[in-house]
């Protein structure tokens, strides 16, 4: 009576290389390399397999280092120590088993090229040199009517009974027969439907969507609080968030959709941006009369650009909620110099063309248009008044003493007499010369211009008496050309 014998790697044995076969293998010793079996592999206590394992069924009670791919059942005993990724159709882990790696349970057994075997089902393979392709079905579930080859030599009862093997060769008979593998009853039972603690490790339950959204929202708020962000996140409901950019002036959300945090109507004080108004300067939807531009009524809209150079304005444009820029200007002291407009407005006979050419107005400036419009309808300025730039010149004030211009309206003849600068005219920003202040009908001789100095006080032809200025103007012009030619 012989018994089925499986391949055995003894406790004192060590294999280096690749082990392949179509039978079961018991490892008590050590294997290093690769194991490719179409049967069952059993690593006993004390056995060490440092290899990539491919088998139909694997039972580990020792140490396995490497990737393990099992077609059917992977059983990890309590003394199992596995380092590597595990992939099997079924996985059983006893309490105490240690695994370091990924565990993938495919859920269905992959059909290997050969028959499916496990320790629960004794092998019925014939120990005969036969090619695998011609090997008949060795499944224990083969139809009863299917005759198996070579079955006449061995009775069916002997084949079906586990532990019954063929007659051994003389060499095998001389050696003591190894004991048959003892399979505990627990290995045969399929895993119970209820997950045991050991089995829970192999199951992955994804978190619900709501918790993922809440976690992401919490992380974003924490980051926004710490790092600052250009947007704010509002939790408007389960699984929904509403993101608004900073500076959004739209009305707040309804109460049922509003988050706990304050809305964006009140910008955070800790991070004021350049576009946000200062606390002391609020955006006024309806500008006050005193905050409006002098000489204008209502609301003037200016492009959102750099602060304009309107005389006397020190404010800066702000952004209205509706997207239309609104100028919130604070009229201050006229810091600039009175322009030619001051003199021109004192001459009602001047045309509108003269006004336009002398007013340094920025492009697309509605205020300038309004100023021009209002300026064209001004009454003749009474004497002794100084004209405010851009404003409705209802009265003209006398020019201050430190005024640099000689074009301001002065009491006297209706037409302001422009004095061609006879002597050294200070450059821009310089102190006015004494000669520039002195009025007089006589036109002094033009002075010599130095370098790139420009005649800043050249009168407009329509403003001066042609007889008095023209000779001087002609002379100045001639001199410019000569100077340019010389250079």
């Amino acid at each position: 009576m012989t018994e089925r014998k499986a391949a055995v790697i003894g406790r004192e044995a060590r294999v280096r290389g690749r082990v392949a076969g179509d039978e079961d293998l018991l490892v008590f010793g050590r294997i290093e390399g690769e194991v490719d079996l179409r049967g069952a592999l059993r690593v006993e206590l004390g056995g060490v397999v440092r290899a990539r394992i491919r088998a139909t069924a694997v039972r580990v009670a020792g140490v396995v280092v490497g990737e393990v791919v099992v077609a059917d059942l992977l059983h990890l005993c309590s003394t199992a120590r596995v380092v590597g990724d595990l992939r099997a159709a079924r996985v059983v882990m006893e309490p105490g088993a240690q695994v370091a790696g990924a565990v993938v349970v495919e859920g269905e057994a992959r059909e290997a090229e050969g028959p499916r075997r496990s320790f629960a089902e004794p092998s019925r393979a014939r120990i005969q040199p036969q090619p695998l392709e011609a090997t008949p079905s060795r499944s224990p579930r083969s139809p009863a009517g299917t005759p198996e080859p070579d079955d006449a030599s061995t009775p069916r009862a002997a084949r079906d009974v586990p532990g019954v093997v063929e007659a051994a060769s003389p060499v095998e008979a001389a050696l003591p027969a190894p004991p048959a593998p003892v399979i505990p009853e627990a290995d045969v039972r399929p895993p119970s439907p209820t997950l045991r603690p050991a089995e829970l490790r192999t199951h992955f339950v994804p978190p619900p969507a709501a918790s993922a959204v809440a976690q992401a929202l919490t992380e974003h708020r924490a980051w926004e609080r710490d790092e600052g962000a250009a947007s704010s996140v509002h939790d408007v409901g389960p699984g929904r968030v509403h993101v608004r950019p900073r500076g959004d002036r739209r009305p707040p959300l309804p109460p049922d959709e509003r988050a706990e945090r304050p809305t964006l109507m009140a910008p955070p004080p800790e991070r004021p941006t350049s576009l946000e108004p200062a606390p002391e300067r609020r955006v006024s939807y309806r500008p006050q009369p005193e905050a409006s531009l002098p000489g204008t009524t209502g609301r003037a809209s200016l492009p959102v650009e750099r602060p304009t150079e309107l005389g006397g304005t020190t404010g800066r444009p702000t952004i209205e909620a509706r997207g239309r820029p609104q100028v919130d200007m604070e009229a201050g002291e006229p810091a600039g110099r009175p322009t030619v407009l001051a003199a021109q407005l004192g001459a009602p006979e001047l045309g509108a063309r003269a006004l336009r050419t002398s007013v340094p107005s920025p492009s697309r400036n509605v205020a300038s248009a309004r100023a021009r419009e209002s300026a064209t309808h001004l009454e003749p300025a009474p004497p002794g008044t100084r004209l405010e730039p851009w404003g409705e010149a209802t009265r003209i004030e006398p020019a201050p003493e430190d005024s640099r211009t000689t074009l301001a309206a002065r009491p006297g003849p209706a037409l302001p007499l422009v004095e061609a600068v006879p002597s050294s005219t200070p450059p821009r920003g310089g102190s006015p010369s004494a000669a520039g202040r002195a009025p007089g009908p006589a036109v002094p001789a033009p002075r010599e211009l130095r370098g790139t100095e420009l005649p800043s006080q050249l009168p407009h032809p329509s403003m001066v008496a042609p007889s008095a200025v023209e000779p001087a103007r002609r002379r100045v012009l001639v001199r410019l050309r000569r100077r340019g030619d010389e250079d």
Partner: protein
Amino acid sequence: MSDTRIGRTLVITGELESSADVVVVGRVDGAVRARGVVAIDRRGRVAGEVRGRAVDVEGEVEGPVTATERVEIGKEGAIVGDIRAPRILIADGARFEGTVHMDRARSSDD
């Protein structure tokens, strides 16, 4: 369990070392070194060096065979290589091709 048994369908591509007995029923493409008895079954094949305390060849061995006690070739055995052992037994019907060195007894570590 200290004995090693290489099954019929098992193929080892590499070397096998053991301090106990080794039975080769399958195929070993490499060296087989054991301190015990190395038995090559009639269905076994070894393509490499075989070294043991005693070597019983019933199958085929292609390589040098070294034993500290004896080398026995069965009637269905075949050795293609040199034999180095103090005692050599060749049965009727065995096949052998190589040289024989019947040196004095030496350990398997040589």
